[in-house]
């Protein structure tokens, strides 16, 4: 059986080095990696390690050893299993394996790695919602076909959604498409942030269709408010 790293033998080493350099150049890199005692406390605390063939210790060590090949493999596979709960932050050496995984994921997205596209399949509507409305979880996402394993209550919520939202005393919560009523000016400011920090470019790498829709929505609003993109 081929060793896992061999799966990526066709990817030039220089390309793997380029991505690894992006990881080490992140401003948070040295905040998250101090060294490793190999004690395994992070693994013992990790929920994903109980469920998957996943180890925050292996990832931390691979990055610390500058094992470019292994880090490339982990960036393509392991990192998407992390729960991002940061239980691993109890590391006695002061590492944050969860934080390091955030950076690895970010580099995977920024470079449009297949793993990132695969891991985020079916996730586009969430990205659309958060980037275009400023609230990630909206009441109208509670649809029985999206959450069949949550039982019949989801159907009841979705069938009564408008009425039940109007039966909420806080004035900001009478919404169905947003979690709360967000000012248009606030959303415009959020769009400027996405533009000025290169987040829209990241979306383009993993989902061109979504990028086009978001760009249309944002440009129209920004232009209405006198901003040129």
């Amino acid at each position, binding site marked *: 059986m081929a060793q896992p790293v061999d799966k990526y033998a066709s990817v030039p080493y220089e390309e793997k080095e380029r991505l690894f350099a992006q990881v080490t150049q*992140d401003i948070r890199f040295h*905040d998250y990696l101090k060294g490793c005692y190999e004690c395994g406390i992070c693994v013992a605390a990790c*929920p994903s390690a*109980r*469920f998957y063939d996943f180890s925050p210790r292996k990832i931390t060590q691979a990055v610390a050893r500058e094992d470019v090949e292994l880090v490339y493999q982990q960036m393509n596979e392991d990192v*998407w299993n992390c*729960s*991002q*709960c*940061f*239980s691993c*932050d109890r590391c006695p050496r002061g590492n944050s394996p969860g*934080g390091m995984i*955030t950076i690895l*994921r*970010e580099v995977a*997205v*920024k470079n449009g790695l297949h793993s990132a596209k695969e*891991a*985020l399949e*079916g*996730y586009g509507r*969430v*990205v659309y919602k*958060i980037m275009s409305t400023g*609230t*990630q*979880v*909206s009441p109208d*996402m*509670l649809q029985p076909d999206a959450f069949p*394993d*949550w*039982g019949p*209550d989801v159907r009841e*919520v979705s069938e009564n959604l408008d*009425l*039940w*939202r109007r*039966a*909420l*005393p*806080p004035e*900001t*919560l009478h919404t169905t498409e947003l*979690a709360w*009523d*967000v*000012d248009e000016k*606030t*959303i415009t*400011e959020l769009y*400027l*942030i996405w533009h*000025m*920090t*290169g*987040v829209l470019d*990241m*979306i383009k790498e993993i989902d061109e269709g979504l990028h086009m829709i978001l760009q249309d929505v944002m440009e129209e609003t920004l232009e209405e408010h006198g901003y040129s993109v």
Partner: protein
Amino acid sequence: MANEVTVPITSVTRGTIPQRVFQRDPANAPTEDIREKLFELEAQGEWIVQRVPDDAVEVMTKYGRTKHIPRQFTWHHKSCGQCGHIPGYSTSIFWLHRKLGMQYTDPKDQTSCTAWNYYASATSNAAAQAAVAVRNFAAAYETGYYPMIHCGTSYGHYKEVREQLVHHPELRKQVRDIMAKLGKPLVIPEEIVHYSEWVHAMRFEIAKRKVLDLSNITVTVHPACHYYKLVAEDAIYDPELYNGQRTAIVSAVVEALGAKVADYSTWFDCCGFGFRHILVQRDFTRSFATLRKIERMKEEANPDVTLTHDTGCVTTLDKSQFAARAHGRNVGIPVMSEAQFAALAMGAHPYRVCQLHWHSVDYRPLLEKMGIDWQARWAEFQEDLERLRRGEREFLTWEDADAR
């Protein structure tokens, strides 16, 4: 025998373990006090530090430092998961403020922290996340009210952002430039405050207004990972609770209300939310939530309810039980936030205020045990809905919420 020595039995110490005495010493804390850096940077003209209002309660945090929790004049940074899917959570937080006579504002000039998406998909970066946080902080500052964060993930993430902004001048510059484009100052709050810290700080005032006897109610507590693991030093600890070895958050409220806190072995485990998993890989979420949390609680403590203080934890622990029940697993514990539980204890309506019809696991046996006539309250709520249907009212109001 002349050389025989008699050893008094009391001097034999083999096999005994002296009890460890755990002393907190903020002077020797393993982390810096980030607040000192905030003020140093303010003195250098780098940013404005928004002060906690004078009307505040002092609490102790993990390394023995003092944190100030504002009682009122708070700007409520809502949670998208709470407002979207468990709206009785947010409503109960507001209701508690109103009943205690504490002034607050519920802003529309607020976005989500966007951290759920970031931890799920990484479709963002440090600069964007910091800019989103600081835009919200600036919006709060403009109102004169102090940010109170409803979501545990927003709270944890904003603490991460604060550390990054303190330690990376290039990030501060980037965010300052973005804020300038938005016409806003670079503002950072003196303390990052979670709503559950406010409930903790106000617990005795809440308990004074309690209208129910909760002495027969057994509670298990799930402390939220992003509250006490992510930038751990800000979390509230109390030497009187768990010998000071675990965060006192939520548990102290339950004790103040007179209910029983029951322990269970997997208290440290996360709920299984996983950020991306809850949305697109729920086999992990369901399994972890039920096998590692709910079943352990059920077997070891058999509680009437489990309480937590974060968006994802309530959703995960509540919604995951349906599929497990279908597989005949030992589940069936109602789940809610401590804010909803405290509101119920103070006489809040279970549907108009706590909005328990949005929850999945059957909570009615709990309400009966708490002495709440849920059938009468449900009938009242159905009448409210009828009035809305008939167009007599467009919305349920705060006045309606307390009408009898």
